[in-house]
């Protein structure tokens, strides 16, 4: 267990809903409701789910773009260390508890501040969904890519121009593109610029928030191949958030499936595609349009939409749309349990029977 780069424990993110004359706090949108997830060094973890299930929130909380409500995110800590702190946090001895709390301020992404945060952010980067919106239209490519370097004061200002050219080279752009504005580029090239910017601080971990969903198929293939190549060359770890399942299958080693702020299934890509255990995963997989007219598959068509996360269904959150729901699913919330090994977990009461 020493090879985790990110270890998320009981992460919660509630967005307050206010109402009435005094803007009272009336309810919470439970975007993330207790998520535990580990990301291993050097892997690509695919995070899938419908819109509104909390995928993007998880990513943004991870980057500390939104403050989390509760929970801990350990970044690049040995497993023993994480276990020790976790044990300390639940300990009844006040001294041990306080010590663990203090330690959190050094290793927990959600608690660190100041210089330490700056340093951690250097190793965490993000590529957003729509490159049209994530690049400042009034900055030159040169400045866009150099900005993280300037902000982090990583290298001497004199060396920055050369570093920028080198970064652009990595993503398949050249010196000629330096003095242009984002609008002069096509969607694929813009996404390359965004990738170059993410690479500039030499990160260990990159969050990919639907990096290809705004792109055409031929360009999508270019970007996917580029990301794969970079991952091998620079030993990067990706969290790949997307709703396009075939893309996830192509690029990731493991897949995590989310539904309404909860993790419902996690496992190696091949296993999940071969034998999905959770009914939701099954429905998701069967809904993928297969680019082959010869194979006609039986589809599971889910009725209705994702329920409102302000007031999620009781028991298993998936039960109103689940074809296999029984009385127990309506009452008792399933917990994540291991399926034939620690690699594969699923949260469903009935996975064994199905």
């Amino acid at each position, binding site marked *: 267990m020493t090879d985790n780069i990110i270890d998320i424990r009981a992460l919660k993110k509630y967005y307050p809903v206010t109402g009435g004359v005094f803007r009272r706090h009336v309810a919470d949108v439970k975007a993330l409701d207790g998520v535990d997830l580990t990301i291993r060094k050097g892997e690509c973890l695919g995070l899938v789910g419908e*819109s509104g299930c909390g995928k993007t929130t998880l990513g943004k909380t991870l980057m500390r773009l939104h403050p989390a409500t509760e929970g801990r995110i350990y970044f690049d800590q040995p497993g023993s260390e994480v276990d020790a702190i976790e044990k300390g946090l639940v300990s009844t001895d006040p001294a041990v508890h306080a010590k663990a709390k203090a330690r959190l301020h050094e290793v927990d992404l959600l608690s660190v501040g100041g210089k330490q945060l700056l340093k951690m952010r250097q190793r965490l980067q993000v590529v957003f969904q729509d490159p049209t919106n994530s690049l400042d239209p009034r900055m030159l490519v040169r400045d866009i890519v150099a900005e993280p370097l300037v902000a982090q004061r990583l290298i001497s200002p004199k060396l920055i121009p050369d570093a920028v050219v080198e970064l652009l080279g990595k993503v398949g752009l050249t010196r000629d593109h330096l003095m242009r504005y984002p609008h002069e580029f096509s969607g694929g090239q813009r996404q390359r610029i965004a990738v170059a910017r993410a690479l500039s601080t030499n990160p260990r971990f990159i969050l990919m928030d639907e990096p290809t969903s705004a792109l*055409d*198929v031929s360009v999508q293939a270019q970007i996917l191949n580029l990301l794969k190549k970079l991952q091998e060359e620079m030993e990067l770890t990706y969290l790949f958030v997307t709703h396009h399942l075939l893309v996830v299958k192509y690029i990731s080693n493991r897949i995590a499936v989310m539904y309404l702020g909860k993790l419902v299934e996690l496992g190696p890509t091949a296993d999940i595609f071969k034998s999905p255990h959770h009914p939701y995963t099954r429905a998701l997989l069967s809904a993928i*349009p297969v*680019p082959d*007219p010869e194979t006609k598959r039986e589809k599971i068509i889910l009725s209705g939409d994702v329920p409102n996360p302000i007031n999620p269904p009781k028991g298993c959150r998936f039960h109103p749309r689940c074809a296999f729901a029984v009385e127990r699913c309506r009452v008792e919330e399933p917990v994540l349990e291991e399926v034939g090994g620690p690699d594969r977990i699923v949260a469903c009461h009935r996975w064994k029977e199905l």
Partner: protein
Amino acid sequence: MTAQQHLVEVSDLSTNFYTFEGVVRALNNVALVVNHGETYGIVGESGCGKSVTVRSMMRIVQTPGRIDGGRIVMFLNPEDKEKGIDILDRSEVYMSSIRGKDVSMIFQEPGAALNPVLSIEQQIAESYQFHRMDEMLGLTISRLQAAAPKAGPLKIWNDFRLSLLRRELAAYEAHGERIRTIDNELYRLEDASDQASRARKHELNHERDKPVRTSRLVGFVRRVPFLRRYRRPLDRTLSAEIVDLLRSLGIPNPENIAKRYPHELSGGMQQRIVIAIALACHPTLLIADEPTSNLDVTIQAQIVDLIRELKETAISSVIFITHDLGLVAEICDRVTVMYAGDVAETATVRELFRNPLHPYAQGLLEAVPKEVQESTLTIIPGAVPNLIRPPSGCRFHPRCKMKMDICEREKPETIERGAGHFVACHLYTKDQSND
């Protein structure tokens, strides 16, 4: 092929956009044929002219765009399927009488396609009021007659309502009859080209464009407060029809949904409403312009399933535009691959996926992650060119790995390789000349 009845024939269609920077040649002599009873797919990357093609077919190309040439012949007459109408010759009023009635369209973004200040009911009702007013009036009249009170002041009110509604109905019926006679004559004149009949055609078209003339009494009463309430039974008929329509599309709790506004609904539900509006008048042809590209896979599956079901029950043909080859494989019968305003390849779905001929079609198919993806994805280098200065000859040549000298000079002819498999590429024209 002869057994198939054509529904739309597009030939030599050129649509250009006159922008500040120059003329964007969005469509470069596009030709395609949609048959009765098929689902026809158009695929390609963005900027390939898929949307412009169908927008030209509906004649709703936005300024600064203009249809500069070609023919779009539609075979909409149910009695005489041999005789088509070139819609580019017809007036704008004629087009609005077709749009939504014979040819309907579902747009890409349901959030943008619906009007945020009108309730769902009001938006669907527009289609009924525009195209099926006579039917709705007839229904209302028979309903009022059935529930007529025997005597008293209510009877007077009821008779008053009935007389006004009958007057309206008479006006609509007279109008419909006039249009029918004009249309019949126009059908006869469709292919005529001599001076006299051209003049007659012009005259008839002008005559046809005149609006419905209701009687002056009706016009007056509709402006008088209280009295104008005579139309309320008509509104009730419309609501009932709309609720029925929504229910038939599998929308849960239709009475409630009909009263809501678009922002209160989820994306999938909004798309169903757009489909409901498109289907309100039982069109012959439904054009779906990327109906699912902003939706989740599960919702996409619902919508696609709905369209497929409707194809079997309510509508004759569907044109399905998408960039998702998976969807094409699932739902379409025949497919056209477009590239930069050119038709690259047309074939049945099976044929295209098994044996793609055009290098662009091959590249596109290889660039999609498959169910079983062993190797890395093959890519098409570069991006779709700027169509203000499109590449010479074959527009694909700068990105093509099979490029020859001739590709830079000449635009390839579309040829048929095997039954119903058309391709426009020099690789194959050369083969043929060698044979």
